[in-house]
């Protein structure tokens, strides 16, 4: 077999095995590659850091499901840790019904780490059908849109809701978004109409779509994929807000090597292609 054929027709099973090795090995034995913190992530970190402690709550919308969990769930954990470490109150809701469990789980883990009290320090609103109607309704009255929390208790009965009526009382809204509905829905119905300050965390593949909104100022900060999550984890650790395990930072080693492997494969494929073309 000629070199052109070998390089141009690598068996897909070999590709899969090599990729598995470069993904699994760094997970078992981390290399500890540290990237630079981008301005997008720093802006989001700063926006959350600037919220007054024990005052108006940060609203987080869990707009993803288990499929995008590896990229977006570490963001959710990090932001919750940041908020709780700074005694910032948090309300969590979601536009994806399949993400409700993830939101509740993240709250459970992080609230225990920081000894936070349900109803006083954080609240879980859950999911409501209607998407745009829910977002628009919250602009008028959060209590009317979510009369009860996820567990069926009237949200009026919780101290966290004192003085909270609508988006005017939400200092920052974060949508962790894996698609539609997601940050674009929040931009269309909450940011544009009610002027709420909005940030987002998205999967790496859709990060480029969010850049125009970042440049226009409609988005304040962006966590782009696992890299964004790892940068946020780095900032949390740097400022002493969390010493918890950093899943995104560890996974970035695997992602770095996987990218390198893909690049090497593309180069090999192209060498094979040019050799074959020269021969023919």
């Amino acid at each position: 077999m000629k070199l052109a054929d070998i390089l141009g027709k690598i068996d897909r099973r070999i590709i899969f095995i090599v990729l598995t090795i470069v993904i699994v090995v760094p997970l078992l034995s981390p290399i500890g590659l540290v990237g630079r913190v981008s301005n997008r992530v720093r802006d989001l970190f700063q926006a959350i850091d600037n919220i007054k402690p024990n005052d108006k709550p940060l609203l987080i919308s869990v707009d993803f499901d288990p499929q995008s969990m590896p990229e977006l769930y570490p963001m959710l954990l990090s932001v919750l840790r940041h908020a709780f470490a700074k005694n910032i109150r948090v309300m969590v809701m979601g536009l994806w019904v399949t993400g409700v469990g993830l939101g509740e789980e993240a709250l459970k883990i992080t609230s225990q780490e920081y000894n936070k009290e349900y109803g006083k320090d954080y609240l879980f609103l859950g999911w409501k059908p209607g998407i745009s109607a829910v977002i628009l309704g919250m602009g008028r009255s959060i209590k009317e849109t979510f009369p009860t929390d996820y567990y069926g208790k009237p949200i009026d009965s919780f101290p966290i809701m004192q003085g909270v009526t609508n988006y005017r009382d939400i200092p920052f809204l974060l949508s962790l978004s894996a698609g539609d509905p997601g940050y674009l829905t929040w931009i269309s119905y909450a940011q544009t109409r009610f002027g709420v300050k909005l940030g987002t965390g998205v999967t790496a593949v859709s990060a480029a779509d969010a850049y125009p909104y970042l440049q226009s100022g409609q988005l304040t900060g962006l966590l782009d994929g696992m890299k964004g999550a790892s940068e946020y984890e780095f900032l949390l650790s740097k400022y002493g807000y969390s010493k918890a395990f950093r899943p995104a930072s560890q996974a970035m080693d695997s992602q770095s090597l996987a990218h390198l492997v893909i690049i090497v494969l593309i180069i090999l494929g192209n060498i094979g292609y040019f050799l074959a073309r020269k021969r023919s």
Partner: protein
Amino acid sequence: MQQRIPLTLCLIMGILMIVQFFVPHKLSETTFDLVVKWVRIISAFALVLGVRSITVRSIEQIRKRRKDWVYSIFTLLGLVITAVAGLGWGVKAGTPLRTIYNNILVPLGATMFSILAYYMASAAYRAFRARTKEATLLLIAAFIVMIGKVPIGSAISGRLPDFADWVLNVPNMAAKRGILFGVALGMIATSLKIILGIERGWLGGRRQK
């Protein structure tokens, strides 16, 4: 009549909501609140319709033994089991529904997405060939962004992440803005066509001129 009433309603509500958006009057806000409540109620009904639709379709698949009809059994089983678990024991942590969610839905979803990495690597190797000038440009841009967006990029050269950001912030953004403007104009045109009754696909059934 079957068409005229929905079309008239669509025209009235469409124009009403456009006017309402630009008029900051108390009456306008009250109308908006009322309409938002209606939409929430209608959305809840949509859930019922969705359940009916998937049930009817799955039963049809099984009855007529269409291609991959076995999967429809699992769809129906999943629907019934999760509905019974949710309605019977609630949705809190520790309930059967949460067990199904944590032990079936979460790992299955994560696995589906993870498999993409393998297919992307294989597809990139096979399809990313510098056959033309445009393909070569795409290849170079992909190399820069792929390597600049991971920590190893900074380790290779401190300028790589900057260059990757430039690619995303300038050429990418220019193209994206163009697409966004196109999409926005298209949405306005389609919305107007629906409001004015030119586009009637949403009514269902045969398209009429």
